[in-house]
C-alpha cells in the first residue's frame, strides 16, 4: 500500500464529501424537472412528466439543439486541424517565438470570455460587415474555434512529447513515404489524444454562451442561448427545467464515448 491506512481513510472521507457536493445539485435538477408546480418551490408538491413531453415537442429547443450541434462540430473540426498543426510545429521544431506560441494558444481560454467576445464582435463589425458577412452561424464558429484550439493542442503536444520521434524515424528509415508514415504510424499514435481533444473541444463549444452572445446573429440561437433567454421568462420555467435535466442525461454520452474510444479509461477525460 502506497498511502498509510489512516491517511487513506481521510482521503476517502474528503472525496466522499466532494462527490456529494458535486452530485447533489445535479440530482436536484433531475428531480425538479418532474415538479408539478409552475413556480419553483422545494420540495416538489407533486410529480409529473408533462414538462418533459412538452420540452421534447418544443420546436425552439430542437432547432437550438441543431444549431449547437452544427456550431460545435464545425468548431471541433477546425480546432483539430489548427491545434494539431500548432502542436507539431511546437514539438518538432525549434524556432524564434516558439515559447510565445504556447502562451498565445492558451490566451483565448484564459482571458475572460467577455473580453474575447467583445474583441471578436468589434473586429467582425469593422471587417466582416463591410464585406457583407453578417453575424450568424459562421461568426459563432469562428469564435468557438478560437478557444477550442487550446484543448486539442494540449492533448497532442503531450502525446508527441511522450512518444518522441523514434517510431516515425524508424518508419522513414525503413523506406516509408511521409504520407505512409503519417497514416500508419503517426496517426495511430495520436488517435486517442485527438479523440480526447476533440471531445473536449466539442464540449467546450456546446456549452459556451458568452462568446456566443457576442458573435451570434439575430435570430440564431444555440441551446445555451435558448436556456438563458427562457430562464427568466414567465411560464417557461418548468420547460427549462426539463431541458436542463435532459442535457444532464445527455452529458453522459461524451464521457461514455471517451471511455470507449480511449485505451486508458482513467485518462479518458483528456487534458484540459
Amino acid at each position: 500500500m502506497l498511502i498509510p491506512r489512516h491517511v487513506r481513510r481521510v482521503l476517502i472521507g474528503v472525496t466522499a464529501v466532494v462527490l456529494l457536493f458535486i452530485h447533489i445539485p445535479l440530482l436536484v435538477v433531475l428531480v425538479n424537472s418532474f415538479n408539478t408546480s409552475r413556480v419553483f418551490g422545494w420540495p416538489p408538491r407533486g410529480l409529473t412528466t408533462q414538462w418533459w413531453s412538452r420540452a421534447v415537442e418544443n420546436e425552439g429547443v430542437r432547432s437550438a439543439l441543431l444549431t449547437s450541434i452544427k456550431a460545435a462540430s464545425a468548431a471541433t473540426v477546425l480546432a483539430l486541424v489548427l491545434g494539431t498543426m500548432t502542436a507539431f510545429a511546437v514539438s518538432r521544431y525549434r524556432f524564434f517565438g516558439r515559447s510565445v506560441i504556447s502562451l498565445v494558444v492558451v490566451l483565448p481560454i484564459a482571458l475572460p470570455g467577455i473580453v474575447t467576445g467583445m474583441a471578436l464582435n468589434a473586429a467582425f463589425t469593422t471587417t466582416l460587415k463591410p464585406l457583407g458577412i453578417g453575424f450568424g452561424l459562421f461568426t459563432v464558429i469562428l469564435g468557438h474555434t478560437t478557444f477550442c484550439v487550446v484543448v486539442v493542442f494540449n492533448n497532442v503536444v503531450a502525446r508527441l512529447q511522450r512518444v518522441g520521434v523514434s517510431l516515425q524515424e524508424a518508419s522513414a528509415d525503413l523506406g516509408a513515404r511521409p504520407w505512409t508514415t503519417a497514416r500508419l504510424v503517426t496517426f495511430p499514435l495520436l488517435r486517442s489524444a485527438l479523440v480526447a481533444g476533440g471531445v473536449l473541444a466539442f464540449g467546450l463549444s456546446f456549452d459556451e454562451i458568452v462568446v456566443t452572445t457576442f458573435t451570434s446573429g439575430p435570430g440564431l440561437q444555440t441551446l445555451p442561448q435558448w436556456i438563458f433567454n427562457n430562464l427568466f421568462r414567465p411560464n417557461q420555467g418548468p420547460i427549462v427545467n426539463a431541458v436542463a435535466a435532459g442535457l444532464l442525461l445527455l452529458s453522459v454520452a461524451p464521457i461514455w464515448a471517451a471511455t470507449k474510444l480511449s485505451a486508458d479509461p482513467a485518462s479518458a477525460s483528456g487534458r484540459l
Partner: protein
Amino acid sequence: MHRNRKLASLAMLAATALVLSGCGSKTTNTEGEGALNIIVWAGYAEDGSTDPKVDWVTPFEKKTGCQTNVKIGNTSDEMVTLMRSGEYDGVSASGDATLRLIYGGDVAAVDTSRVPNYKTISSFLKDRPWNSADGKMYGIPHGWGANVLMWNSDVVKPAPTSWSVVFDPNSKYAGKITAYDSPIYIADAALYLMKTQPALGIKDPYSLDQKQFDAAVALLTQQRKNIGSYWAAYTDEVSSFGQGSNVVGTAWQVNANLIQGEGKVKVSTTVPAEGATGWSDTWMLSSKAKHPNCMYKWMDWITSPKVNAQVAEYFGEAPAQTLSCDYTADKTFCDTYHALDNKYAESIYYWTTPRAECGDGRGKICVDYADWTKAWTAIKG
C-alpha cells in the same frame, strides 16, 4: 355555438374589410404577397414552437397565405438595426425604438383604414407622441403595462398609495423593500421626485439634466440601504415575496398573479398617486416592406379581439384592443390589468431610452443611457 360566433365575426371582419378597401383608392392592391418577415419581442408572435398550444401565427398563415418568418429581437437596439437592413416588413417596437424608427425614415405611416380592428383600439393609445408624427399614426398599438407597486397585504398596512413607501428613508418596511434591477429604474425615482420635489422641475422622468439626474441617483443610493434584494428575473420577486423576505416594491402584474396563484401569500397592486413607469408596444410597417399587404393583414390579425386577448394573456399585459376583454380565458383579466381604465393608462410614463437630446427645447443637456448604466453600477456598489 362558439364556432358559429367565430365564423360570424370573421364574416363581419371580411365584410368590413371589403367595404373599407372599396372606399379607398381603387388602384390599391390589397392582395397578400404570400410571405411576411417580422421582428418581434419574444412572446408576441408564437407559432407553436415554444408550446404547441400557444399558436396564433399558423392560423394567420392559413387564413391569409402569408408565410410568416418570425425573428426575435432581444433589445430595442437590435430591432432598430434589423429594421434598417430593409429585410423586414414590420416590427413590434417599444417606446425607446419607435421614435428612432420614425425619424430615421425606417417605418412608414400606416393607413389605419386598412386595419379595421384599429377602430376599437383603446383611444388613449392613439396619436400619442411615441407612435405618431405630424398627425399621422406610425403603427398599430399592441399592448401595454405598468410597473406597479405591489405589497404583501398581510404585512403592509394600511395599503400604500404612494411610492414613498419604497423611497422614504424611514420606511416602516426598510430591509424588506424590493426594486427592479436595471438602469431604467432610475426613471421610477425621477417620477417620484417629479411629484414630490417640484423645485427640481422634472417634466419627463426620461429626460433628466445633470442636476435632476443626480437627485434621482441620490434618492436611489439612499434607498439601497433599505432594499432587501433587487429583482431582475420575475422569479426572484416571486420567490422573495413568497418567502416573506420582501414585502413591498415595484412589480409587474404577472408577478403578482403568480404569487397570488400559489395561494401562500396575499398581495395587492396599485398605481400610486405619483403614477408609474410602464411600457407600450406598437406594430410598425417598414418603409421598405416587400410584403406590405401581408403586414397590414398581420397588424389587423394581431389586434383582432380574440388574438389580441390570447397574446395579452400569454405575455401578461393589457391588450390594446378593447373588444379583447370578451375573449380572455380569465374573465377578470382586463380588470386585473386595467385594460379599459383610461385614467390608469394616462398615469403611466412609458419607457423610452434616455438621450442627450432632451426633446423639449432644453437642448442636448440631458443624461444619456450610457451614463444611466454607469450610475446604476455605482448605486448597487
